[in-house]
């Protein structure tokens, strides 16, 4: 009896569901959400449970099931990267300004352009944000509900995928930085509410990481 016929009556056994998730994730280069998995699988399946089994099965293997934001994907184990020299993709070299801007967006998101400039002490140059947008490592977030309603930037799932992060909460050193108050949006002493300070009353990325 094929799975398809079976699905007309009952959800397939969990071992079978695990095989399905395995096949679907293997076939796709981009991470897939549970919702996407469920849509693909026969009615009544529980991709979350199947995925839990699958992850365990691949622990310590040459490929692993990794979480990327809200989605899942197979990736090779990082310790075997040296075997894959042929598959290495030459990344466009990012300028120092672009890397710093990216880090600031990741650690302070959602963050406005004015805030990035305040942290770096220089104007964000034309093209820097453009480049990061084009690489799909950052995107526009919600506008700030402050005068001028500036747009904000946040990092994308593509960013998480590239740097092997499960979520923005797993950014290296995030906890220490937060504990040290270095992610606070601290206004300059005695500053009036001016154009640059308009965002100071909004919640910073701490809100993002409070579960």
């Amino acid at each position, binding site marked *: 009896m094929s799975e398809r016929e079976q699905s007309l009556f009952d959800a397939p056994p969990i071992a079978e569901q695990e095989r399905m998730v395995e096949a679907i994730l*293997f*076939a*796709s*280069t*981009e991470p897939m959400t549970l919702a996407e998995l469920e849509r693909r699988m026969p009615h009544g399946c529980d991709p979350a449970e199947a995925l839990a089994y699958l992850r365990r099965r691949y622990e310590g293997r040459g490929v692993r099931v990794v979480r990327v934001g809200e989605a899942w*994907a*197979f*990736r*090779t*184990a*990082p310790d075997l*990267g040296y075997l*894959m020299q042929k*598959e*290495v*993709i030459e*990344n466009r070299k990012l300028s*120092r*300004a672009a*890397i*710093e801007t*990216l*880090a*600031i967006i*990741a*650690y302070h998101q959602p963050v406005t352009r004015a805030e990035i400039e305040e*942290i*770096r*002490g*220089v104007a964000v140059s034309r093209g820097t944000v*453009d480049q990061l*947008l*084009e690489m*799909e490592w950052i*995107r*526009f977030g919600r506008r700030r509900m402050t005068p001028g309603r500036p747009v904000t930037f946040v990092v994308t799932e593509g960013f998480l*995928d*590239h*740097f*092997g*992060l499960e979520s923005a909460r797993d*950014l*290296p*050193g995030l906890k220490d*930085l937060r504990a*040290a108050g*270095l992610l606070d949006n*601290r206004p*300059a*002493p*005695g500053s009036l509410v001016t154009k640059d300070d308009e965002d100071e009353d909004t919640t910073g990325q701490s809100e993002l990481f409070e579960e």
Partner: protein
Amino acid sequence: MADRDWIDDQKDQSVSERLAAEALIVDVDGFEGPLDLLLSLSRSQKVDLRRISVLQLAEQYMRFVDRAKLLRIELAADYLVMAAWLAYLKSRLLLPPDPSDEGPSAEDLAAHLAFQLERLQAMREAAARLLARDQRGRDFFVRGQSEQIVKARKVVYSAALIDLMRAYARIRTRDEFRPFVMDRHDVFTMEQALERMRSLIGYAGDWSDLESWMPEGWDAAPMRKRSSMAAHFAAILEMAKRGQIEIRQGETFAPIQIRRPDPARGAE
């Protein structure tokens, strides 16, 4: 904050430190703004950024700016603004606090600067840690052959937000940057004046001041008035050349008058 080390600093500066300072000068293009420069200077203090001597830092910074000037290196305005602000901060730090002053204390300002430096430094380190992570396509890899069994072919059109924005920017800039066409706000062209005068000249039976021929509202603002006057003056010269109009002016700077030529009247 009453750190006075900087006073002897000049004398005590070792050769290597001087060389380092020299390198800073030569390298001024390598700095991304005043804050970046301050951060580099602060490293020579070899202390926790929280405990950095802002006074000493201000002194180092101003020395840098002075030497840049000496070497005739063009410094961007931001560097000079920062220098001015640091000079102000330095004076505030050195003087006893003024009780009537309601603004933030010099210590608060200094502490904020230290915070900014520490935060910038922290972001630099965070960026470095981020880049040190395993990266997709370098350390770990995706499936090389994504499998697609051709059964139901479905075409999905995609576009990224950036494409959308670029398209919109393209359309909008096409309007904004029409080649050779300025937005002629408050500008009356000779062509416009010529057009106007041609249709109105029929009414100019007798001498009348050119000013009375200005379009409505165009004598309101000085710039508009100048522009429309110039345009109409050029237009009537052109029309006079073609014999469509007669011009006279009593004396220099007197009102210019025009009328339609009348063959019956003969020349004056």
